């Protein structure tokens, strides 16, 4: 169960960007897509989200084939690198958006939405910012709003595209553990795109190392370090051996 990605390929013209990618995410698992710039991480994440479509292969979520399903029907929460907050809405309205868009039958009552928004904002530790507008927030605060907004729809899967790349190192570390805690608390599966090895090692249960549209290796941090599947993996993770020796994150 969970998400299964089978043999997904995608090309732009003659440029093969994803080459027969296989990946699976177990329920409640946190997977990181790790790879250098241009390796196809964002493309894969957008295909999972339904914002782009593959030329070949299959996506199966909880046994249901979702290969051609529209993004809005997938119920996957996405956090964009640019945050993509609705600039003309308050933090509370941003967070409520997904619930307000539901068809009348499945839409919670107004007070129900209000309560849910409050719970989410408190969980993301931004309850006091509910009435602010995105332009009045710091980068880290925006990131938390984006996360709360994505979680509001009770997603089946959380997708994050380099969510911390625009933030400084200190805030980044705090947000990382906040994200991990939140994900555990909600019990949701998550896929995080990053090119930061440390981030992947600290946050993920399993890591998929990508290069030039292929997944070079998919396994736990320990497996990647002990038995790298290719010279690329060994080289790309060079320097992380120390990290393991310190015993952090594993």
């Amino acid at each position: 169960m969970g998400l299964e990605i089978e043999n997904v390929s995608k090309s732009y013209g003659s440029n093969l960007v994803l080459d027969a990618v296989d990946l699976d995410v177990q329920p409640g698992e946190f997977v990181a897509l790790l790879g250098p710039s241009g390796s196809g991480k964002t493309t894969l994440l957008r295909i999972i989200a339904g914002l782009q479509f593959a030329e070949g292969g299959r996506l199966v979520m909880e046994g249901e084939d979702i290969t051609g399903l529209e993004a809005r029907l997938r119920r996957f929460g996405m956090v964009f690198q640019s945050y993509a907050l609705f600039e003309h809405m308050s933090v509370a309205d941003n967070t409520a958006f997904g619930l307000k868009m539901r068809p009348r039958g499945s839409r919670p009552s107004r007070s129900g939405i209000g309560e849910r928004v409050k719970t989410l904002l408190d969980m993301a530790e931004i309850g006091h910012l509910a009435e602010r507008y995105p332009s009045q927030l710091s980068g880290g605060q925006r990131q938390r709003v984006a996360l709360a907004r994505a979680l509001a729809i009770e997603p089946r899967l959380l997708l994050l595209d380099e969510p911390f790349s625009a933030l400084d190192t200190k805030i980044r570390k705090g947000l990382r553990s906040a994200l991990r805690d939140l994900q555990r608390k909600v019990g949701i599966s998550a896929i995080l795109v990053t090119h930061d090895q440390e981030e992947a090692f600290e946050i993920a249960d399993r890591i998929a190392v990508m290069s030039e549209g292929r997944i070079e290796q998919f396994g736990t941090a320990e497996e990647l370090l002990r038995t790298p599947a290719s010279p690329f993996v060994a080289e790309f993770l060079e320097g992380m051996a120390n990290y393991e020796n310190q015993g952090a994150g594993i």
Partner: protein
Amino acid sequence: MGGDAVPFPGRRALVTIIELPFSISPIVAGLCYLLVYGSTGLVGGFLDQWNIQLMFNLTGIVLVSLFVTCPFVARELIPLMEISGRDQEEAALTLGANGWQTFFYVTLPNIRWALLYGAILANARVIGEFGAVSVVSGNIRGETMTLPLQVQLLYDDYNVAGAFAAATILAVIAVITLILRAVIESRHPNVH
């Protein structure tokens, strides 16, 4: 989002068509409309069989005015929408919004000032429009008159005072437009 902001094929041609009215005389635009939509024209002849007449009435004036002014609105909107990209729309989709909801709750509020600004410019242009409208309106007194056409009519009737009065109204509308434009520009400097 970078990756997907690739212009779709035919974008250039479309932009050229939208901006065409900038580069041709409005009278030519009016004549083109007459040729295509007039009762002997390609489309007009067909519509004529169904007793639908587009020229020499209000519909014709509105159509040709739209043609002449839509580049003003497009010029305001296209750059803004290019800068803001598709991120917010995509976020709305992943949150479960359909196309209409995305447009009404996300796209439209984001472009509302540019839209208003474009509409004001278009309005200024259309109120003063003479060439294209004079061709398609048929100059039917009391029916298909616009202010500039009225000015000419009065003048041709040797009613100089009347012509100046009508012209003054035009000038006043122009001034109001300028004021509105200045107000929007000062409140929302990033619109233009």
